[in-house]
């Protein structure tokens, strides 16, 4: 019978030398002189990816420094928990939509507290914000039976004037010896805007300092996205993916800080304005932009990844069309070139082109009635953009990975002749071209 109190005495005198004695004895038994030390590690429970990003636009425009982290916890039965955190610190200025002019222009700030003047000939920028944005996401992946899986996620982000809440779901199923995967996803977002000074009523004038009579309360924007996708392994070296996406936005889709210049039909110069007596205000007539309250987008996306004896070519194409009459094409190519066992070089090329929205106007003719919708936001204009980048990555002995990338983004717009008004606009920079640097440093490790 077991005597529950009986203690088996431990050989304290030689417990530490057991391993050494055992090693000697084993070498004698196996007839070896030495062996490579064992290398065994527990599989990490968490995989963490971190990145530090620096984004800077030429001409004192937007600058962003951000830190992002993605954490994945893998469970033995293929369940995965993903958590991400991002913190962005934005500073700088962005074009407000007014056209440049031979003379100075004065604008009321978004808060309505003060005015700012743009020197002659320069593209008017709003040098307002110092903004910090925090974004969080959580995602759960759950296998359903052997061939299917289910994803559910939540997202939230907060800035001083914008709050986002979202949920997403995805269902996937494998077919054909798992060579084919079909998936369907759904995402919902409920965003709330609380612009500085209050959202302006669309198409109303930019008013004098402290005049917030055309401002409204909080605004809402709802977005629904549907993605249908299929991925297919073509052969041992080639995999492809095709997606169709549908997106529907509803609510306040305007940029509350953007305006359109009212110009003289003959000269094309901004129409001057005199502020109320004793008060500062805009020097010319500007109207707050107005976009439709709905937007429907369709996208087709195709991607191929091809393995060529160690090198990987990743090429994708996306076509987007929407009911604002914007059509875009995106071509994205990456080529990963391994260097030795542990590092790689990856050049990157991206080409993007879009047509302008049907309500895109660089300026408005003051002699005509205002259209229902008008926006001079350069992001709704017609432009081509090219990204050229290079990334270098290397893996440490313990399997952690570092990478650094440097990219240059350059967007070059064009304004169709029929959008120009009057005689003076031809010589001006009506579209604010963009040149930006993207620098990122990443570190991935297990924990």
């Amino acid at each position, binding site marked *: *019978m*077991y005597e*529950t109190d*009986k*203690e*088996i*005495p*431990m*050989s304290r005198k*030689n*417990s*530490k030398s*057991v*391993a050494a*004695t*055992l*090693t000697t*004895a*084993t070498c*004698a*038994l*196996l*007839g*070896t002189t030495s*062996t*490579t*030390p*064992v*290398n*065994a*590690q*527990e*599989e990490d429970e968490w995989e963490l990816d971190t990145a530090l990003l620096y984004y800077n636009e030429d001409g004192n425009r937007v600058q962003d420094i951000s830190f992002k982290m993605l954490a994945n916890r893998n469970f*033995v*039965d293929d369940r995965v928990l993903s958590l991400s955190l991002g913190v962005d610190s934005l500073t700088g200025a962005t074009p407000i939509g007014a056209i440049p002019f031979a003379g100075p222009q004065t604008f009321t700030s978004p808060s309505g507290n003060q005015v700012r003047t743009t020197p002659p000939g320069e593209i008017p920028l709003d040098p307002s914000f110092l903004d910090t944005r925090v974004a969080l996401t959580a995602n759960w992946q759950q296998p359903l039976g052997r061939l299917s899986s289910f994803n559910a996620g939540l997202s939230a982000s907060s800035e001083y004037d914008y709050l986002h809440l979202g949920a997403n779901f995805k269902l996937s199923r494998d077919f054909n010896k798992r060579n084919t995967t079909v998936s369907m996803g759904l995402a919902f977002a409920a965003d709330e805007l609380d612009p500085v000074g209050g959202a302006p009523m669309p198409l109303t004038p930019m008013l004098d300092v402290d005049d917030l009579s055309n401002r409204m309360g909080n605004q809402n924007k709802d977005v629904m996205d549907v993605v249908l996708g299929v991925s297919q392994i073509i052969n041992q070296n080639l995999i492809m993916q095709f997606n169709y996406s549908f997106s529907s936005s509803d609510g306040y889709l305007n940029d509350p800080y953007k305006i359109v210049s009212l110009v003289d039909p003959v000269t094309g110069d901004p129409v001057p304005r005199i502020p109320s007596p004793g008060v500062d205000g805009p020097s010319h007539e500007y109207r707050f932009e107005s976009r439709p309250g709905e937007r429907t987008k369709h996208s087709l996306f195709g991607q191929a990844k091809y393995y060529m004896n160690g090198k990987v070519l990743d090429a994708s194409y996306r076509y987007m069309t929407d009911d604002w009459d914007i059509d875009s094409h995106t071509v994205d190519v990456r080529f990963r070139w391994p260097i030795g066992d542990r590092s790689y070089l990856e050049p990157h090329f991206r080409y993007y082109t879009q047509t302008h929205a049907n309500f895109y106007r660089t300026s408005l003719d003051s002699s005509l009635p205002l259209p229902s919708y008008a926006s001079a936001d350069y992001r709704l204009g017609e432009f081509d953009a090219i990204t050229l980048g290079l990334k270098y990555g290397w893996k440490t002995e313990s*399997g952690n990975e570092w990478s650094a990338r440097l990219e240059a983004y350059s967007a070059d717009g064009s304004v169709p002749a029929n959008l120009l008004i009057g005689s003076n606009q031809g010589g001006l920079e009506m579209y604010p071209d963009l040149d930006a640097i993207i620098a990122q440093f990443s570190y991935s490790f297990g924990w």
Partner: protein
Amino acid sequence: MGSPCEVLLETDSESSAAAVAGSVSTEAWRIEDKFSRYLPDNIVHRINNSGGAPVEVDDETANLIDFAATLYEMSDGRFDITSGVLREAWNFDGSDNVPADSEVDRILERVGWSRVKWNRPELILAAGMQIDLGGIAKEYAVDKAASEAAAETDDACLVNFGGDLVATKAPTRSKGWQVGIDALDQAQGLPQKLIRLQNGGLATSGDARRFLLKDGIRYGHILDPTTGWPVQNAPRSITVAADTCTQAGMLATLAMLEGKGAETFLADQDCKYWCYR
């Protein structure tokens, strides 16, 4: 070996795979045939039926016996290759058939390495006593088979005999050999833990399948030869990583024999281990 045996080889060459599989299985069968206590005409059979007469053994057998003797010293008598006869009293079939004290004591008369006269190469085993190399031979076979494989090829190779394994080299095309430690709850079918092995040995000692259960007390199958009873408070499962499979296996067994002190023992040895209670 009493368990499924496999060799994993990272190669594109079918002929290389056949050659390695051939040399590994040949070595495995050779060791099994030579040291199995179930076969009627090998060295172990001759020793166990010598009736007290001296038996002269070959070098390989002598090496194993020397090794067993060292382990006997290291464990203060708890690792004992003459303890096999206790299986006459203990049959770990999951039932509640726990033997009586008197039965165990009777068999203990025939247990004890100190009763054996070992003067290499001559072994004298008293009548009624038996040696069983089962506690060493499997891990030994893994290491020997792996060295046969390493002689045959430069490619990364892993030899696995029923969960006792050794990897000669890290695979080049993946991040290491992925080894799962069986969960204590077999129903799930999923491993308890995943280990990435680059090179070296892994061995597991445990009672997952062989045990007795009576009056709510679980009796694991590792017997303490000094008492004739299963080790008290032994962990349910111990997996150890060491330079060779033999070392890993012996460390796991020695740790089991420490019962309550298994984790402390393993921590003192400065090796990687996974211990479940």
